[in-house]
């Protein structure tokens, strides 16, 4: 890694990236109803400002020599005790700069979209306050130059996610889903916190620079533990197996939230963490293999779940899990995969935001119904939504030339070079992706109308369609980042030089195999859903379908292994505390009360018995004195 230079010139403004959305959030949330009228405008202006500043900084970064593209800005010391020090320090380098553009760019579009989408919600101003809070925290996460400041952003986005999933909290399901997301993420956070403590105990430092400098001299056990603990954190935030269960429920949040937080940005923070901590994973085979396996399992699980859902947002959520699995897998491959992980992360940010916002547009005209079985034939009535959605669809399945084609292909190539079986699994999953996305497309936009009687679909307003058009263009053209290997080269100062891999077969042949598999997936979906009528009530389905509908029993497992035993434990402990522990104390009190009742009888009030007692006592004293002296 190259040296970090102090922020001078325009880079001195880096802190505004975080500060402006944060201040806007405070104004909107503390200002109350007074800000209702213009709240959404301020809320949209803040990320737009950050985007403009982000572009300026990005261009300034490009204008510098490669060795000067890591810029640090120290704001103030958060806390320092003994050797433990955490700073509010920012690091703007190629990796964080790309994230800044993704977060503020897609973020601004989604803010614009939300103006229309949330127009009829009485709490719209608060919605924008939460979104701004999210943008500020997410920028803190990617701009931090140490793990503790990163963790501040990490928990900040978790809070924003909690608030936004539960935004319609008068619904029990939304409130429960919000809490679940937070609690499951906290399990991952344990990993993060322990990793940071281990860093401090091992290196006396929690900065990226410090840990990177010392990691090679640490013991093998420490290296592996660090890698696995960080992976646990990444699994929570990125909804990877085994901490995946919260993401599907998180779809309770308003759709712009699903697009921004639960597809394009926050859920990719785990991938960011792994890539950023590449220096750890490069020292430990066990942990990096674990990353690959987690990614592999999740990309398969997510794809299977996506096939069975009738809820349009849950199909997309399963797909998000699966696509992040691809990124995670690539990140686990080390220098051969970092750039491709980030490349896929960015293109996915474009096309998945596009798809979610498109789904939101559909729901907007269908009275917020999410059941695809009562959709159908919407293409004519919602042309803009349909065409833009189709661009996102072609991008995600990897239609040649579209953004996802380039990025997914690169991940598959890297996987293939690493291990042929992993490669085959990624290809098959690409076929499954084509299947479930085609199924979604057919059930929603094509075929017969299966609408409920009171539904009158219509195209959405311009505030919603314009962001769709922009994202659709990005979904088509996103692949340009790989032209001439640009992204890999650009990221070099952050993640080191790209490693080139040897494929057992020519690249073109591999691409052909992938494209063919995708075509097969599309064909099967068309045979099943395009040529036959879609039943309004879901058929019972095979064992696999039913398992996939139940999220492959992830929740059932958590309930059986963690939740119910936990409930029994707390119930038993409450009983123990009331009866056992406190009962023991109260029992002791009763015993003392009883004893004193007995002893009280000695106090008869008769002088003669007292005199007798005194005599006895005096005798005892004399005898004992004698005994001591004589002894």
């Amino acid at each position, binding site marked *: 890694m190259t040296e970090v230079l102090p922020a001078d010139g325009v880079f001195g403004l880096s802190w505004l990236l975080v500060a402006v959305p944060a201040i806007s959030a405070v104004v909107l949330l503390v200002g109350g109803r007074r800000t209702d009228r213009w709240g959404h405008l301020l809320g949209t202006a803040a990320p737009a400002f950050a985007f403009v500043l982000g572009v300026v900084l990005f261009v300034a970064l490009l204008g510098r020599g490669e060795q000067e593209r890591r810029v640090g800005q120290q704001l*103030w*010391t*958060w*806390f*320092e*005790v*003994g*050797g*433990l020090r955490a700073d*509010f320090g920012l690091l703007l380098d190629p990796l964080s700069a790309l994230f800044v553009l993704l977060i503020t760019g897609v973020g601004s579009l989604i803010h614009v979209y939300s103006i229309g989408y949330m127009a009829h919600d009485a709490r719209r101003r608060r919605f924008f306050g939460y979104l701004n809070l999210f943008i500020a925290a997410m920028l803190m996460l990617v701009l931090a130059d140490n793990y503790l400041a990163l*963790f*501040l952003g*990490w*928990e*900040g986005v978790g*809070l924003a996610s*909690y608030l936004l999933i*539960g935004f319609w*909290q*008068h*619904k*029990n399901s*939304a*409130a*429960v889903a*919000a*809490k679940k997301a*937070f*609690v499951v993420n*906290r*399990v991952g*956070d*344990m990993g993060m*916190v*322990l990793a*940071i*403590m*281990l860093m*401090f*105990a*091992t*290196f*006396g*430092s929690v900065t990226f620079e*410090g840990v990177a*400098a*010392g990691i090679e*001299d*640490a*013991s093998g056990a*420490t290296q592996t533990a660090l890698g696995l603990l960080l992976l646990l954190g990444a699994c929570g935030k990125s909804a990877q197996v085994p901490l995946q269960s919260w993401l599907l429920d998180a779809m309770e949040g308003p759709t712009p939230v699903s697009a921004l937080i639960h597809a394009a940005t926050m859920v990719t923070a785990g991938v960011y963490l792994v890539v950023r901590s590449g220096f750890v994973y490069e020292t430990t085979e066990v942990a990096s293999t674990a990353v690959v396996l987690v990614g592999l399992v999740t990309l398969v699980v997510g794809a299977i779940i996506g096939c069975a859902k009738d809820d349009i947002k849950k199909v997309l959520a399963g797909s998000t899990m699966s696509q992040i699995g691809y990124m995670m897998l690539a990140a686990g491959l080390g220098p051969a995969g970092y750039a491709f992980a980030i490349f896929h992360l960015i293109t996915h940010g474009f096309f998945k935001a596009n798809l979610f916002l498109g789904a939101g547009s559909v729901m907007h005209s269908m009275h917020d119904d999410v059941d695809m079985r009562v959709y159908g034939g919407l293409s004519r009535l919602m042309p803009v939504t349909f065409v833009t959605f189709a661009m996102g669809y072609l991008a995600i399945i990897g239609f040649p030339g579209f953004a996802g084609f380039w990025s997914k292909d690169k991940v598959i190539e890297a996987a293939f070079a690493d291990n042929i079986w992993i490669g085959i699994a990624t290809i098959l999953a690409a076929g499954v992706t084509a299947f479930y996305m085609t199924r979604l497309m057919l059930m929603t936009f094509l075929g017969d109308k299966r609408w409920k009687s009171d539904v009158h679909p219509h195209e959405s307003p311009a505030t919603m369609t314009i962001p769709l058009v922009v994202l659709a263009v990005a979904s088509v053209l996103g692949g340009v980042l790989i032209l001439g290997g640009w992204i890999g080269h650009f990221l070099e100062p952050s993640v080191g030089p790209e490693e080139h891999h040897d494929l057992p077969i020519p690249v073109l042949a591999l691409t052909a195999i992938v494209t063919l598999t995708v075509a097969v997936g599309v064909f099967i979906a068309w045979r099943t859903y395009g040529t036959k009528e879609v039943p309004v009530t879901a058929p019972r389905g095979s064992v696999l379908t039913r398992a996939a509908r139940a999220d492959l029993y992830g929740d059932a497992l958590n309930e059986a292994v963690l939740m119910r035993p936990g409930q029994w434990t*707390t*119930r038993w*402990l*409450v009983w123990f*505390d009331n009866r056992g*522990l*406190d009962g023991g*104390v109260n029992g002791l*009190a009763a015993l003392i009360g009883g004893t004193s009742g007995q002893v009280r009888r000695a106090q008869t009030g008769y002088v003669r018995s007292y005199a007798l007692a005194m005599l006895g006592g005096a005798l005892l004293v004399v005898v004992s004195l004698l005994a001591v002296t004589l002894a």
Partner: protein
Amino acid sequence: MSFPWLTVIGTLPLLGAVALTLMPRGGVLPKQLALGVSVGTLVLTAVMGLQYSPRGGMQFEEEHEWIGAFGAHYALGVDGIGLTLVVMTAILTPLVIAASWNDGDEGRWSVNAFFAWMLALEGLALGVFAATDVFLFYVLFEATLVPIYFLLGGFGGLQRSYAAVKFLVFSLVGGLLMLAAVVGLYVVSAQAGTPTYLLSELSEITAGIDESTGRWLFLGFFVAFAVKAPMWPVHTWLPDAAAAGTPGTSVLLVSVLDKIGTFGMIRFCLELFPEASQWASPVVMVLAVVSIIYGALLAIGQDDIRRLIAYTSVSHFGFIVLGIFALTSQSASGATLYMFNHGMSTAALFLVTGFLITRHGSARISDFGGVEKVAPVLAGILLVAGLSSLSLPGLAPFVSEFLVLAGTFSVSVTAAVVATLGIVLAALYILLMYQRTMTGPLRADNATITDLRAREVAALAPILGLIIAFGFYPQALLDVINPAVERTLEQVGVTDPSPDVPLEALSQDEEASQ
């Protein structure tokens, strides 16, 4: 002689209490006087605090001989640890008085008595945190029981008599053990020459004490402090007391008075009995970790909001004690900071839920549902207070909790790992409570709950402001705390473990090779 700051600050509330008992009963005047006196105390404390120099050791010292035969002195003084708690007490009392404006109206005694006892409690607590003489400390320590007993027994809910007596018995048993240890200290110091209870002189004497005497004396103090703190398994008085008291009483009890326990552990257990502290450290750490997990699990299982908060405090006090007895600079500074932060976050929780409970007449979580819809400000404040209780980064308690954990990790990985489980459980107990009371469809019988009034918001806003400010800039407090903690650990004779891969050595190697 310099101005006796600490005496003035401690006496002002006591005089206020006397004035309250002399003036006509009832009306708004006693309330205004009480608020005025506590604000005055806060202003004086602030003026004193501004003159404090972080690296100056014990300051604002006063010393007068009191009982020559015992070697007891009227001796006051604060270092960074004492000052932090004095400031916390001075900040919280006026806010508690403002929040409890109408809570004393329907007690067993007059509203004058209610606020007089509160002021008396403040004065005595300030004295405890400033005492630098063991005998004086003991007298004030026991004296604090009186106001809290009357606050609990006179102005509480249903089971107030039971709770008040239970609290008193637990505290007296602990106090008795401490008395024995205090007498023991007299014997020790008398044997060494002239008897003295001055901390500064005692610590030199006890440094050379024989092992078993030191350990017995340590235990006498420690058990008293563990009851007060409260630690598992002597915590059972706290939930009953918190459920019976008014919200204001609970704040003074849990946020201020219980801190005497953990403050005493640092000031007396560590400083007077370094050898015994190191000897006891492993066992105490286990008890602390048990407190953390046990308190959190019990909190999850509660239906009464006030009992729930009481159990979260058992868990948080576990963190504080863990930090003290892990004996590293990070953990001990973290523990001291935690005392302040816990004071703030628990005060916010007790007060805001108190407003909620008063409005609905029930403290049971299962009697609420969907309150956010009718009281969004109350819900928002409850959420922020709750998030600070679960140690969300950006809010003050996170830094202290992390420091405790990181310091503990460097001496005992196991203790740190188990304690870290507490952060998952904390999310459960807070968010379950929030979900069940505030979210979901609005219950019909909750529809009449009104949102917070200006006075109530005004009482809570400063606390929330501090929680957020110290979340981002805790160094302001740590600059005061760190030197005092360093000095204490020096007295104990421990140093921080050094990192396995010290980076400075690495960079020196590189320079050498170049």
